[in-house]
């Protein structure tokens, strides 16, 4: 352009211009800084203020972190050594890590059991979370995992989880046998036959209590982050299928089923979780026949699951409502029955729409497991507030302990959120 003569219209280029780098002021970090940090006076001031705050936070945090002590035996000793200098007393973590993670009564020589169960969880969850990359054979392990994990964490004879598993298998086989004749009949047959197996198996496991037995750890000895993690994983994985059933039930044409679901969802959503936990802890005992012991963790799991499944049901109902009616009609017109069209056509699409909402509930639920500390269970928060802060050695340590709690919860919740965003991208097939 530069060597074109303005006064002459005709123009022929005889030498081609070589490629040149753009001016330094228009590329690279200089331009980026100018465009993004100091485009004008107002934004430059904002940038400086923000930088100042970041500096202040780091200036306070880093010396505290770096100057921290990791080996003292008590807070008093720690303060004495620090002698007014900045530094955290992280020795509470090195000294009490086992209580923070497993609770204060879980036998230390058995820590390998919940740890192993934790590691195996990743294998078991892989085919569910990353179905496209993991061979589907791993699903057999996923099916066995709840029973293995129960045996590892609670201990006792392996006959108990085996009988439980056997009950499910027998129930499933009974269901398959009768399914062709009638769905409801098959469901009844499955429940009855599974109950029979469990009933007979109950005597069997009493008689064989020594077979392949790990030292038994009762539920009241569970605690620390392990308890939060057990509650979170179990309740999320139970409340998703229950939530799906509730959402479908709420859409049902059958009035009784519909109203049971509506009343359940509306009632549970209208009650604070903490109330339900108190019910689980205290009130439920009045409704049970005297003398029955009903495991506290099991009661809490039931309550949290009911609570979150009501929320998930509403999220999924939103997903169902977003599907065009044509999808139902197309599935119907091809001769798919109700179960098939729900499983193959409606649910995959409704769940995809519901992913952000479901993740929201799941993350909230995982954090809400700390509420069990209010009914005197020693989860991570209960552990910190109770035994550790009440002890003479560590009374007065706050930042280090709560920082540790954040460090435990944040990666899990952030991981769930990142996974869900990845999943949404993966499932985006409509190319709008």
């Amino acid at each position, binding site marked *: 352009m530069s060597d074109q003569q303005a006064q002459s219209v005709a123009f022929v280029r005889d030498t081609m211009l070589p490629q040149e780098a753009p001016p330094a002021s228009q590329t690279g970090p200089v331009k980026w800084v100018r465009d993004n940090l100091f485009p004008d006076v107002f934004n430059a001031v904002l940038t400086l203020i923000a930088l100042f705050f970041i500096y202040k936070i780091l200036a306070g945090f880093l010396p505290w972190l770096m100057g921290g002590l990791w080996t003292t035996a008590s807070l008093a000793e720690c303060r004495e050594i620090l002698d007014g200098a900045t530094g955290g007393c992280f020795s509470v973590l090195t000294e009490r890590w086992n209580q923070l993670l497993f609770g204060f009564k879980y036998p230390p020589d058995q820590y390998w059991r919940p740890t192993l169960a934790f590691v195996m969880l990743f294998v078991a969850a892989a085919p569910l979370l990353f179905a496209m990359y993991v061979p589907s054979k791993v699903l057999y392990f996923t099916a066995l995992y709840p029973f293995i994990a129960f045996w590892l964490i609670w201990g006792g004879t392996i006959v108990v989880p085996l009988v439980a598993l056997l009950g499910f298998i027998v129930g499933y086989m009974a269901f398959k046998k009768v399914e062709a004749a009638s769905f409801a009949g098959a469901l009844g047959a499955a429940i009855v036959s599974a109950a029979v197996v469990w009933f007979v198996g109950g005597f069997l496991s009493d008689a064989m209590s020594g077979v392949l037995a790990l030292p038994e750890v009762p539920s009241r000895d569970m605690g620390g982050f392990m308890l939060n993690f057990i509650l979170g994983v179990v309740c999320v994985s139970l409340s998703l299928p229950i939530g799906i059933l509730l959402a479908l039930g709420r859409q049902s044409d059958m009035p009784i089923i519909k109203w049971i679901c509506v009343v359940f969802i509306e009632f549970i959503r209208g009650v604070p979780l903490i109330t339900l936990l108190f019910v689980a802890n205290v009130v439920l005992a009045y409704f049970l026949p005297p003398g029955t012991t009903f495991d506290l963790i099991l009661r809490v799991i039931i309550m949290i699951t009911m609570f979150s499944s009501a929320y998930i049901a509403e999220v999924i109902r939103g997903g169902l409502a977003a599907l*065009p009616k*044509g*999808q139902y*009609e*197309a*599935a*119907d*017109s*091809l*001769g*798919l*029955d*109700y179960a*098939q069209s729900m499983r*193959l*056509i409606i649910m*995959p*699409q409704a769940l*995809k729409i519901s992913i952000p909402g479901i993740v929201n509930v799941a993350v909230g639920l995982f954090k809400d497991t700390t509420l069990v500390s209010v009914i005197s269970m020693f989860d991570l928060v209960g552990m910190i507030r109770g035994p550790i802060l009440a002890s003479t050695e560590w009374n007065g340590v706050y930042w280090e302990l709560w920082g540790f709690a954040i460090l435990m919860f944040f990666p899990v919740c952030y991981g769930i959120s990142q996974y869900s965003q990845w999943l949404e991208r993966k*499932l985006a*097939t*409509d*190319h*709008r």
Partner: protein
Amino acid sequence: MSDVLPETHNVEMTVSDEIAITIENMNKWYGTFHVLRDINLTVNRGERIVIAGPSGSGKSTLIRCINALEEHQKGAITVDGTLLSSDIKNIDKIRSEVGMCFQHFNLFPHLTILENCTLAPIWVRKIPKKEAEATAMHFLEKVKIPDQALKYPGQLSGGQQQRVAIARSLCMKPRIMLFDEPTSALDPEMIKEVLDTMVELAEEGMTMLCVTHEMGFARQVANRVIFMDQGQIVEQNEPEEFFNNPQNERTKLFLSQILGH
């Protein structure tokens, strides 16, 4: 619209005496609104019927009653010798014999084209996956889009999607096909490719009921045109007679409006 298809090439009629569908004194209400009134219709195997009429005349509702997407309150519908009742098993059986194409295609957006076509054969007909895929590819070739088999519906044009929808229905090897305004949601240049597919289907002797405004298609393919108004069958005749010599005033008005431009 009538110039979409050449009228010189008329489809040969091979209608058997066997009866495919009978509808007797069928009535339907939406609440208190009487949508369909005393419908009587017998369709022979191999017959190709075009149902026309102004919007709201109940023509879509009529064919949607045949595969029980809509319930009727009075009268009887017999499809392929099976009396349509409210029993789910009975309805599913009829639906698996009757294919249907919708105005908005209603493909399953989360499945590939091939999966759309193999889903019902695999789950309803219990056909092995390999065999179902072979059948699906056969019909996708027939509608001339085998190369799109692994794409998702959202990546295809409207005309292509509707042809996939036809192929999806054909994979169930239906004996009767219902078309509910299959070209109404398409851009003009895509209408022809869908109609061509339907003509080809007609030539193979498929029993077809089409709700459509494509009068060229009706002339070329139909052996009976039914005109509906206010939930009733007002006139039915062979296409030549129907278009050249309509009897009812309502039909005359409708034809003058639809063919007048």
